[in-house]
């Protein structure tokens, strides 16, 4: 733009830090593309190939395997549920011990370190580690999911407990309440909805993860999937994918509805809400839903 028209627009300030960051990021991306060992030519037939495979998978899927697929998905869901419950049982007391107002530093730090380490190790790797003790069974899968859940639930738990309002805590302390009273009446009431919804959310994650654990042989839908991919029974694979998608989505819907109910006090299905809310875009401060209830 020329300044001859006497424009009042100020010159855009040069942000050198941002510019350098952009260059650095672009450089890293270009370097990654340039150095990775990939036959990019394989990408040329990718559209054609995927069309072919999509047809093989879903036109039509192996309907006669639907029952078998469904029952192995149920096994995966059972694995996820049991793993979640076990994870909750272990992580719940631990997350109290890792919360700031409730435990001394010497207890808190090692626990937080443990949670962080667990979170950094993928569940599949945990499963590989413990399978020498428990064998390649769905039980191993559930144990791996339980361990993985301890990492995330422990962290979310102590964060929720630390966010509890200090007023009630102080009131209980000054009126002579002990540790148990402090937890039951000070911390729990304010963090319960959040903590319960974390449990459900972790269950949703575990349902997805349990399908993955099957791929290394821990049973369930993943195992059936891996077996059929190896023998290239594509129509069966397509059926399995359909079952995974339908069951995961159904569980997400139910669990999502319960989570909304826990946190906001209203019953509604997330997908229905998301699809139904397609109407007029929300203008801040104008729509009735912008004001929180109560």
């Amino acid at each position: 733009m020329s300044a001859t028209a006497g424009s009042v627009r100020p010159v855009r300030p040069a942000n050198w830090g941002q510019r350098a960051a952009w260059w650095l990021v672009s450089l890293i991306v270009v370097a990654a593309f340039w150095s990775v060992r990939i036959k990019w030519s394989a990408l040329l037939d990718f559209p054609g190939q995927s069309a072919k495979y999509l047809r093989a998978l879903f036109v039509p899927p192996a309907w006669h395997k639907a029952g078998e697929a469904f029952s192995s998905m149920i096994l995966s869901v059972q694995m996820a549920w049991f793993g979640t419950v076990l994870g909750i049982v272990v992580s719940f007391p631990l997350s109290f011990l890792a919360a700031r107002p409730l435990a001394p530093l010497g207890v808190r730090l090692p626990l937080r370190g443990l949670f962080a380490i667990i979170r950094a190790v993928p569940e599949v790797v945990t499963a590989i580690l413990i399978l020498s003790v428990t064998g390649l069974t769905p039980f191993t899968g559930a144990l791996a999911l339980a361990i993985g859940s301890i990492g995330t639930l422990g962290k979310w738990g102590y964060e929720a407990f630390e966010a509890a309002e200090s007023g009630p805590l102080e009131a209980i302390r000054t009126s002579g309440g002990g540790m148990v009273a402090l937890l039951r009446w000070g911390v729990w009431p304010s963090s319960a909805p959040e903590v319960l919804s974390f449990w459900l959310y972790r269950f949703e994650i575990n349902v997805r993860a349990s399908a993955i654990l099957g791929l290394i042989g821990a049973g369930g839908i993943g195992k059936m999937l891996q077996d059929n991919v190896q023998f290239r029974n594509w129509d069966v694979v397509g059926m399995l994918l359909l079952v995974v998608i339908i069951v995961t989505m159904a569980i997400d819907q139910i669990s999502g509805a319960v989570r909304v109910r826990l946190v906001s006090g209203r019953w509604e299905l997330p997908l229905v809400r998301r699809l139904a809310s397609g109407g007029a875009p929300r203008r801040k401060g104008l729509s009735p839903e912008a004001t929180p209830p109560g």
Partner: protein
Amino acid sequence: MIPVDGSGQRPTARPSRPDHRLRTGIVIVLVMAITVWSARGIDVDPAAILANWPNAVGNLVQLFQPDYSFFPQTLPALVETLQMAVIATAVGSALSLPLAFGASRAANPNLTVLRVVRFVMNLVRSVPDILYAAILVAIVGVGALAGILALVLFNIGIIVKLVSEALDGQDLGAQEAALAAGGSWFGANRMSLLPQILPSFASQVLYTFELNIRASTVIGLVGAGGLGLLIDNVRNYFLYHYLSLIIVEILVLVVLLEGFSSWLRKKLL
């Protein structure tokens, strides 16, 4: 001051406490029933742990003695994992940005397109990344390419959801002004909404990069390249002292990255 009547009872205006005992009881029984049903389904067998314990001790001891001399051999896989994560994040976020606008009801006036995009995105999100990898390995062959494609799909699912929700929450005044002044929807979104969501978009991209590093260490288990491929090799031969070195590498990588990206995200937001 508390008014006291003759009986010593306080006539308070406090409503009676709602009785949730029945409901709580039903929920507890239901949860326990599902747990027992699950436990039977997966054959919970603590006795097996005791029976296998003597065999397993050797492996577990190896686990705490990482063999650092194996490090040079893991280096190519480690680099490949990083390359996969970088490329997938770049491609995935580039593809997600327009899709996020398509999936946001604030930015997309076309209801049909909105619903189609949201439906497809829900489908994409409901398949775990490693399942994509398992199928893509069959389509494009073993190697990093299958992994990258799987991660891209996985990233699109996440970023589109998070960014379109961020878009829905934005202040639409500037967009309305641009539209009223005769701008097209594309122009209005680009000039009014895009600058508003760029910081949160950047932070989602960083978050996705973290997820990608984590995911790219495991999708190799089905043949999609990176550290996972190596994990699969060493675990088939029960080389647990190698496996533990790989785990240490994953730990260091993830912790370093988490620290870096949480620092960067604080600066962004």
